[in-house]
């Protein structure tokens, strides 16, 4: 049967037409590929526009097209658009092929003649290939209405609450003993200076008590299998060594525990906790966990003070980690960020000079419930500073560490400046590269701090030392910085320095990404499906990213993303089923020789050997469509839909113009 093929070449405004002679490409296809079945070749300003799509739909109906080739942008952008257009006109969507002449031609080449010639080759390849395409039907699978949210910071809490309030079940998994995340550590939030705990803790309680939320703290996801609609997730509940069904959260165990430990997580190393502890008073859930590494009983077999005093016999030293499986349809990742480790910049002296603090330490210090009860003091925990320097861009916008801007540190530093002035009356210097205050009421806050008398020095701090050169520098920290606005080097003697450390991807972001089948970008943040139009979805269907896992952002942006991902998940749940790409391998049992070469190649265990028939068989539900077995079968018995040998061989021929009619000599 000869095909009737339509070729559509897109100008993409001037994106393609500026570098490729699109009229020539269309005319060439109409003439030179006529023998292959091209009956119409058109060019149009924007093929993806509704008018462009109508053009294709009209031709399918009126000219009876059986195949369509669209030469435009990458299939990752508009394959779906044109497949849907074909479907609307009654053509099977898998009989449409995209030829990428924008990302692969016009945007990467400059010579118009060369770009036009390459476009012809790409179109020729697509025409040859589309002839070999076969009509496919999408595979519909039901969607499990449960959702997994990983990470209980504000972004994850928001996601979980939105879905739970819509009436669907959520498993909220958090690695730490309590939900709350970084926001629970802060005192004030910019630019309104409202108390972080006052706005966060009601949300935490709501998440903790919601009938539709199963809260799993002190837990980690250890395995994920399946696909959108049908994920099977294994969660490890780390042993709390406190029976949560008996514990009332009275706190007596913490009070009686004789072992004090520096709290490097919640108190950022500035305060202490006990060996059995809840990270903070408003923790949700309010059940403590036992830190086995520091517990005296686990060290030398004596103590058990907590057990002795527990009024409900909730302490259980023998508790072990437990694994449990949950089935969910969608997964939202909200695992947050790590703070840049300031010791990596030795010239800033963090870790050696006691009165150099990180931003997170300072947050804890400002917090009324923190180790200093909100008093701003030096490391001796009593002296108030008279001069404070805030160093911006520590580990951000720096070729040696992270090139990106962490976004939040400018506003955070301005907040610090305000708090220092308000609470101590000290002089505050902000050493900045640029002040970036782009969102609602942020610039106004900057103005306010300027009016309050904050000093601003435009320059990147070179070093912080305690080596005094002048009498007034004795016993002080000296901040060496060039004020680039006046072109002068300055040495600022200070009592306290706060390093506005940047945000970094979690240290284990890569491994976690692999677990969920999503990728990290160059800077290590997870890659969204589209940087502008699809910022919470990922390349893996059913997995969403919200908050700082996607890139540095502040609280309002994290909350917005949390809610956005929930809307996406709810959309999927309401559809009840999802269509999967029908790209699968299958074995022709007539030609299978039963050699079993393919059996060991499949990482998804989709291929099984049927001993009775001496042939192998592929389970389509497990097959992910990589095609490795197709390439390996020595008998050619395995075929892969969407990427068959016939399609690829034809595309090779087409790209090399082997499909053209031989020119008569």
């Amino acid at each position: 049967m000869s095909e009737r093929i339509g070729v559509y070449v897109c100008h993409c405004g001037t994106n393609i037409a500026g570098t490729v002679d699109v009229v020539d490409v269309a005319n060439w296809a109409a003439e030179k590929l006529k023998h292959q079945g091209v009956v119409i070749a058109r060019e149009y300003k924007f093929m993806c526009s509704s008018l462009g799509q109508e053009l294709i739909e009209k031709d399918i109906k009126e000219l009876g097209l059986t195949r369509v080739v669209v030469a435009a942008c990458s299939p990752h952008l508009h394959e779906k658009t044109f497949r849907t257009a074909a479907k609307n006109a009654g053509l099977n969507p898998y009989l449409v092929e995209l030829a990428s002449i924008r990302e692969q031609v016009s945007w990467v080449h400059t010579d118009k003649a060369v770009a036009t010639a390459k476009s012809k080759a790409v179109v020729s390849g697509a025409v040859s290939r589309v002839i070999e395409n076969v009509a496919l039907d999408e595979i519909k699978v039901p969607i499990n209405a449960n959702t997994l949210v990983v990470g209980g910071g504000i972004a994850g809490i928001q996601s979980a609450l939105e879905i739970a309030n819509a009436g669907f079940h959520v498993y909220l998994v958090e690695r730490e003993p309590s939900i709350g995340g970084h926001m629970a550590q802060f005192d004030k939030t910019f630019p309104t200076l409202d108390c972080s705990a006052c706005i966060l803790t009601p949300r935490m309680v709501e998440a903790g008590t919601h009938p539709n939320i199963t809260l799993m703290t002190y837990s980690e996801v250890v395995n994920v299998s399946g696909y959108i609609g049908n994920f099977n997730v294994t969660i490890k509940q780390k042993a709390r060594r406190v029976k949560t069904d008996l514990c009332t959260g009275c706190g007596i165990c913490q009070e009686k525990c004789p072992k004090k430990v520096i709290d490097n997580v919640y108190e950022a190393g500035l305060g202490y906790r006990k060996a059995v502890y809840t990270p903070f008073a408003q923790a949700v859930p309010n059940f403590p966990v036992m830190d086995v590494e520091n517990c005296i009983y686990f060290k030398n077999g004596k103590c058990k003070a907590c057990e002795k005093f527990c009024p409900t016999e909730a302490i259980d030293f023998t508790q072990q980690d437990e694994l449990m499986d949950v089935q969910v349809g969608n997964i939202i990742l909200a695992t947050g960020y790590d703070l840049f480790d300031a010791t990596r910049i030795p010239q800033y002296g963090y870790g050696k000079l006691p009165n150099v603090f990180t931003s997170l330490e300072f947050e804890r210090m400002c917090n009324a419930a923190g180790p200093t009860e909100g008093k701003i003091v030096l490391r001796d925990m009593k002296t108030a500073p008279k001069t404070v320097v805030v160093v911006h861009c520590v580990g951000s916008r720096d070729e040696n560490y992270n090139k990106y801007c962490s976004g939040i540190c400018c506003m955070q530093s301005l907040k610090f400046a305000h708090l220092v002035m308000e609470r101590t009356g000290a002089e505050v210097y902000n050493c900045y590269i640029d002040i970036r205050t782009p969102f609602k009421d942020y610039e106004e806050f900057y103005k306010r701090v300027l009016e309050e008398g904050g000093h601003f020095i435009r320059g990147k701090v070179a070093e912080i030392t305690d080596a005094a050169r002048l009498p007034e520098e004795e016993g002080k920290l000296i901040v060496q910085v060039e004020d680039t606005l006046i072109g002068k080097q300055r040495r600022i003697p200070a009592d306290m320095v706060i390093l506005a450390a940047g945000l970094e991807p979690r240290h284990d972001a890569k491994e976690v990404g692999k677990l969920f089948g999503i990728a990290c970008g160059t800077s290590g943040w997870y890659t969204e499906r589209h940087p502008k139009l699809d910022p919470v979805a990922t390349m893996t269907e059913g997995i969403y990213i919200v908050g700082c896992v996607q890139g540095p952002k502040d609280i309002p942006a994290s909350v917005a993303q949390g809610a956005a991902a929930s809307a996406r998940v709810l959309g999927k749940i309401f559809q009840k089923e999802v269509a999967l790409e029908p790209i699968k391998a299958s074995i022709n049992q007539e030609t299978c020789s039963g050699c079993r070469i393919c059996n060991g190649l499949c990482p998804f265990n989709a291929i099984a050997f049927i001993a009775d028939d001496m042939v192998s068989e592929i389970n389509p539900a497990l097959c992910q469509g990589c095609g490795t077995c197709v390439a390996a079968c020595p008998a050619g018995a395995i075929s892969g839909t969407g990427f068959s040998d016939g399609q690829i061989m034809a595309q090779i021929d087409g790209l090399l113009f082997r499909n053209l009619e031989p020119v008569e000599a």
Partner: protein
Amino acid sequence: MTEQFEPTIIGFTCNWCSYRAADLAGTARMKYAPNVRLIRLMCSGRLDPTFVLRALSSGADGVMITGCHPGECHYIEQNYKALRRYLLLQRVLKGLGIEPERVKLVWASAAEGARFASETTAFVEEIRKLGPLNWGKPVAELGNLQEEISKLEEVRA
């Protein structure tokens, strides 16, 4: 001065990493040599070595195979299988009298648009140095290969 030889190269890309790297090179408007024409596969593991031979015998002067970095395969480990096939294929090419350097394996993640562009340009230069392959040509001069084969089969019968 003679005209510079412009090689024709077929590139096989993985849907998840290197194809997206090519997309990224496009979005970032990075310029690279226009000699490579790409074919998208779902995975480098899909690459049947006969695809490479077909490309070389149909007029390509070189073939670039690209996939995810080791340990980053979208399908867990199928790029290792591509690596195995690539190494074997190089031996086959040697046996056929073809420079094994005409086929190159490149790892490029979805974030490595710059790497994709620079590797492509570098490969084009390597093939330019090797000169045209002309593998398909002698066969063409013999006439229609299929006719020859059917003649042989007639004789055999």
